[in-house]
């Protein structure tokens, strides 16, 4: 695994020894202020991203955009075997390459903004380090390609740290649209009769979370039928189609060919159809949304527990 961080990760960054990060940050802030003569911006949180270098690039882009709009300090860390590697530093961002997992928590503890919330965005790496950084995070956002191992570990510290998965944020529109439909009297009356769920999804773990959410929210017995089918798609949405069926009613949600919205229908009736925008699924928007949340998400935790038990046909 490469431990080198590409310079385009933080354009214009200074490369400094680990011990000089804090001093460099202070100097850069002062220099920036002298240059622009603008008042210092209010910083509101620290975002720590841990992952392989390739996955840090997209995170750095997203956080750079977020930083243009709001005040966050970002710390990007790729894992390696060095206790004190060099770092790239800009006014509000730090990138550290090849840091040994056992020192990640020390690095985060020394570089995070004191007294302000810290969000850890976990994009992969040593699972042992996850335990350590979770203890420093006010909110832990999981975002790994194969989430089973991290999901299993995350379930052990739900009591101490507010945990979520970025997939959960991607599902918000789908969940909200379905919840809207459950306000319709005809749907409300049929709640107890729903017993079959089928999902076509580009992201199967997301489909498992969605199914787990529905299963726990509707308090389904294990005998109810859940099927998840993997389909290929353009990546704009984690799910492509959801069908919830009962003996009295069928609800269908799907992404139409325009690829910009979500369409919902109840029992095939036009009068109860609903169209909502697909929403901004960009990493910037998703992580920005996560920054606004501080509390435990019990619905996610229940969904996570159920999702781990689901097998995919």
């Amino acid at each position, binding site marked *: 695994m490469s431990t080198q961080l590409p310079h385009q990760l933080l354009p214009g960054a200074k490369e400094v020894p680990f011990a000089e990060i804090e001093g460099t940050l202070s100097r850069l802030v002062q220099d920036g202020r002298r240059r622009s003569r603008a008042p210092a*911006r*209010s910083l509101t949180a620290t975002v720590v991203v841990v992952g392989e270098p390739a996955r840090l690039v997209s995170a750095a882009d997203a956080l750079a955009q*977020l930083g243009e709009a709001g005040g966050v300090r970002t710390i990007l860390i790729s894992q390696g075997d060095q206790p004190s590697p060099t770092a790239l530093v800009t006014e509000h961002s730090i990138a550290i390459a090849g840091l040994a997992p056992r020192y990640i928590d020390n690095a985060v503890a020394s570089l995070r903004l004191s007294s302000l919330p810290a969000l850890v965005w976990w994009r992969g790496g040593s699972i042992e380090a996850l335990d350590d950084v979770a203890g420093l995070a006010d909110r832990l956002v999981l975002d790994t390609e194969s989430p089973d191992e991290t999901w299993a570990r995350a379930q052990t510290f739900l009591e101490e740290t507010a945990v979520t998965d970025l997939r959960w944020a991607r599902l918000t529109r789908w969940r909200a649209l379905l919840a809207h439909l459950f306000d319709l009297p005809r749907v409300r009356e049929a*709640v107890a009769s729903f017993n079959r769920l089928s999902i076509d999804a580009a992201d199967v773990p997301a489909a498992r979370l969605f199914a787990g959410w529905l299963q726990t929210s509707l*308090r389904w017995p294990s005998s109810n039928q859940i099927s998840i089918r993997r389909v290929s798609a353009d990546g704009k949405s984690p799910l492509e189609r959801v069908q919830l069926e009962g003996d009295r009613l069928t609800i269908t949600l799907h992404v139409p060919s325009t690829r910009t919205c979500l369409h919902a229908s109840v029992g095939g009736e036009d009068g109860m159809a609903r*169209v909502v925008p697909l929403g901004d699924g960009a990493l910037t928007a998703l992580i920005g*949304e996560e920054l606004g949340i501080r509390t435990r*998400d019990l619905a996610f935790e229940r969904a996570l527990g159920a999702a781990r038990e689901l097998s995919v046909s």
Partner: protein
Amino acid sequence: MSDAPGSGSNPLLDGLRIEPTPDPTTLVIFGASGDLTRRKLLPALYQLSRGQRLPARFSVIGVARSEMNDDEFRRQFHDSLKEFAGVEKADEVSGTLVRGLSYLFGEMDDPALYARLARTLQESHAPDGVLFYLAIPPTVYGKVVEQLGAAGLTRPSTPTGWRRVIVEKPFGTDLDSARALNAVLHQHLEESQIFRIDHYLGKETVQNLLVFRFANGMFEPVWNRRYIDHVQITAAETVGVERRAAYYEQAGALRDMVQNHLMQLLSLIAMEPPITFSAENVRDRKLDALLSIQPLLEDGAKTNVIRAQYSPGWVNGSEVPGYREEQGVSATSVTETYVALRAQLDSWRWAGVPFYIRTGKRLAKRTTEIAIQFRRPPLHIFKRVSPTPIASNLLVVNVQPDEGISVRFEAKLPGSRMQLAPVMMNFRYGSAFGSAVPEAYETLLLDAMLGDPTLFARHDFVEASWALITPVHEAWRTSGPAAIPMYEAGEWSPREADAMMAADGRRWRTL
């Protein structure tokens, strides 16, 4: 399964990050062809729909005098989105909303119009939650509500239904007219059904005042006469009367700004902590604050209210006419375009702390802010080494355009000498959170649909505010044109307003 969720509650709402969604709603806009509808209401509905804040069953019935059919109203909707919401062409969101738009036209006092409205509501199987929005001239508020009442439209037809009415400002023109209008509304509606809108209260920074004061332990202990010297509330505009001369000639700055917006700001600054963040608790405490203001004309020795009118001048590098030269304005008009006043509150917290309010058109800069000036330290121990007087601590709440909060305090200048200088510590919504702040009308429309009146004015607040303002108008009414001082457009204030402050040993803040 025995414990499956029943039909009583929505089992999927738990933990949903989307904010509460109103019950199924039909929005009936009176004045649907007007400026407010096009500029504010229709774009707000579009943004709410984009954010999935509208209920699954939502429809709009536009009502106005202009002859128009459903399709023309729908075209107006698209035009409005293009002009005021930057939506260049129809999309899925506007398409969904358009399907729920319909239009009725007729005279506002014609019972047949209301019979057709009732029939439309019934035949379209529209939701039984109905929100009437009175985006019409204030002179017809009473007539419309009377007709709604007579047609049986102010009462829901099902146990779960509801009826609410949003009333735009101005709510009356003086105390008597406000009382009369409240009486008409109360003949047909409960107070809980009436939502008197003041768009200032929908602004994020104004709502943040409550959070700032009551969710922080460090400010409330010093929020009183012992530590605060005075408060200055400023709402300054660079524009003139624009196309509103007909309205403004009758209203003036005192009615247009002070009676509603600025009294709301004052009450939020001066109110005692509510027991809970419930609409009634918050509004009770705001009313207390307003009721504690001494009558503005009873302080015989001092001039508590200054009015003025702008004369020709320069604003933002452009030469502008005086008020009396504006189109639609009388050449002998004595309508005030500027008001400055001193309010004294009779309460344990604020006794002896003046609240200065100023508002005007064609001033040097567009800004709305609340500045709380603290008392100086009792002893200047640095006087011998740094003889410059210490600047008072200042807490400034910027309402618009650059929403945020700043604190001014003294700091030591770097160097071997002990020199002091004031510095500002700034918090800005834009740079700290970045996220787009919702338009006030989005917030307020949604709150009305949800039935949350916290950010709306209650009848007693409106009347208490008019009770303060009306005697001032009465006094002005008896004086002639020569009595109104003038200020040059582009200046900050007339001499008389500066003199009012100087008499108290204070100065207006330089903005």
